């Protein structure tokens, strides 16, 4: 029998102390510094704020950043699901190694990823030299930005879909087969609907990560204003020109977008668990 204990009567000690410290540390490290951004933004006049945020260079950076992040998240949703499927369902040599390395983008510092991707996909790099004759230029183009975002977003879809696939009971598919469904019908009508929420959650996580990413992109991007300059880089550029107001305005827009993304992801995760026992 599970008993939910109300907050006012508890047997385990230390609630007040630990909750107090949690809120204190959270405030000092996260909440107060983050609120500084909004207070700074509030000191800007509305006109200045709008002028900064809708200036062509800023708009171009938003378009590039969000466009590339969506493209990368779509690529990850498709190939990440495939990777998760293959890792859960099939046996093949090197599977364990591949499984472990999927987390590499979480562990590899972004600067290392950045210089490596730039080198590998440059016109005389390991992969770039085969792509260039085909007319595909990756490094120093928006495509390069997408490639970097695919790299850093790769684990998200795999790691959200994989556990869901692992927990699917084989009985579901057997039941579908017994009821006369062919393999493709079973996949489309039984398996895909069960993993769709996880795929969408992974997509949202990869997208959110891509939008904010800096380190792995700047080396491969080319960083040409209006063409290949991502928003985080623009914030740094403004900061280096001592344009604190401009940097703050752009940052606050990005922060609001990340909060909305966080909210969406939370709702998605709740939704994806709606059938959970």
């Amino acid at each position, binding site marked *: *029998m599970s*008993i*939910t*204990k*109300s907050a006012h*009567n508890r*047997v385990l000690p230390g609630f007040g102390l630990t909750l107090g410290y949690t809120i204190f540390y959270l405030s000092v490290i996260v909440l107060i510094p983050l609120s500084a951004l909004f207070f700074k933004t509030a000191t800007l006049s509305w006109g200045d704020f709008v002028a900064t945020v809708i200036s062509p260079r800023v708009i171009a950076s938003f378009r590039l950043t969000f466009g590339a992040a969506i493209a990368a998240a779509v690529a990850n949703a498709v190939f990440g699901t495939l990777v998760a499927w293959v890792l859960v369902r099939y046996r093949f040599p090197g599977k364990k190694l591949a499984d472990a390395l999927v987390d590499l983008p979480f562990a590899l510092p972004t600067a290392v990823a950045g210089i490596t991707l730039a080198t590998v996909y440059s016109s005389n790099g390991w992969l770039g030299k085969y792509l260039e004759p085909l007319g595909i230029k990756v490094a120093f183009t928006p495509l390069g930005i997408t490639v970097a975002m695919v790299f850093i977003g790769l684990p998200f879809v795999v790691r959200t879909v994989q556990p869901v696939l692992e927990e699917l009971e084989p009985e579901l598919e057997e039941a579908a087969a017994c009821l006369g469904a062919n393999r493709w019908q079973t996949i489309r009508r039984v398996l895909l609907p069960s993993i769709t929420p996880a795929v969408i959650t992974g997509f949202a996580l990869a997208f959110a990560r891509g939008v904010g990413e800096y380190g792995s992109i700047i080396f491969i991007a080319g960083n040409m204003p209006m063409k290949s300059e991502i928003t985080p880089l623009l914030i740094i550029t403004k900061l280096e020109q001592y344009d604190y107001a401009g940097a703050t305005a752009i940052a606050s827009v990005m922060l609001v977008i990340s909060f909305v993304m966080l909210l969406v992801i939370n709702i998605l995760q709740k939704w994806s668990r709606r059938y959970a026992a």
Partner: protein
Amino acid sequence: MSIEVSGVSKQFGAFTALQDISLTVPSGELVALLGPSGCGKTTLLRIIAGLESPDRGEILFNGENAHDDVRERQVGFVFQHYALFRHMTVFDNVAFGLTVRPRKERPSKGAIRERVHELLKLIQLEGIADRYPAQLSGGQRQRVALARALAVEPKVLLLDEPFGALDAKVRIELRRWLRRLHDEIHVTSVFVTHDQEEALEVADRIVVMNKGKVEQQGTPDEVYSRPASPFVYSFLGTVNMFHARPQAGQTASTEHHSVGYARPHEIDVSRQDPGNGAIAVTVSRVLPLGAIVRLELARVDTGGLMEAEIPREKHEELWFTTGEQVYVSPKNLVVFVEDYQI
């Protein structure tokens, strides 16, 4: 050490778990809190332990207010799923309560070792002191949990569904063993169960609970043969209900729907109508179950189902067969006026 529960109420949000509960556990007795799941028995046990605090009312040990702090209350609590420390060996689990005592009160290492081995001997698990909980069977875990609780020499021993997680055979062995153990150590004990057979077999006294209230308390014989309410009657065993129908010449007041209850062994079965208002039934199945034979019967008038149990000798004498019509009359009918639905 006697336990007195006085006027205890407990609310969880909108749900009333316990409503003005009062009961007494005499020193040295083994008492069962019996009731269906959700009746509040586990909450009551946790309140006695000090793991939960009541909204109203109090718990007295030997007439004195029990300590608020669970650590000072000195109860031994055996959790339903044992809550053995999974990273500790059996020995360390049993020794835990002694090793966490303040240095001044802590027994020496040798004394702890001696005490633990004494307890392991008591629970007949001397050989497995070095195993981890994951390597034990359910029954072994149960006994280790008991030894751990006893190691600190608790004033009272509280057990939450002590046999609930075990399979049928182990359950029966273990409850007999618990009874013998209690006769040996005589610590005042309360255990929670939803199994009436378990309560009847093991306990000195039974407290029957339903929907946050005490329905009846008494010895197993009292609650079984003189149930105080239809709930107690039906919870403690199979029961046949006789709905009194308002009939000409019947004395019962017709505004109240009164129901008579009789247990299967309290039903007389005969081929001839004895003429005392016996009910005509058809035998639908005959089940020889060892020393008794159970007859499943269907009323001729309403089609309602009944059960009767007769000694095997009587069956061998009369030899009822499926499909024949017989007459039944309750030997001992208990009538409750309020309608109660099982």
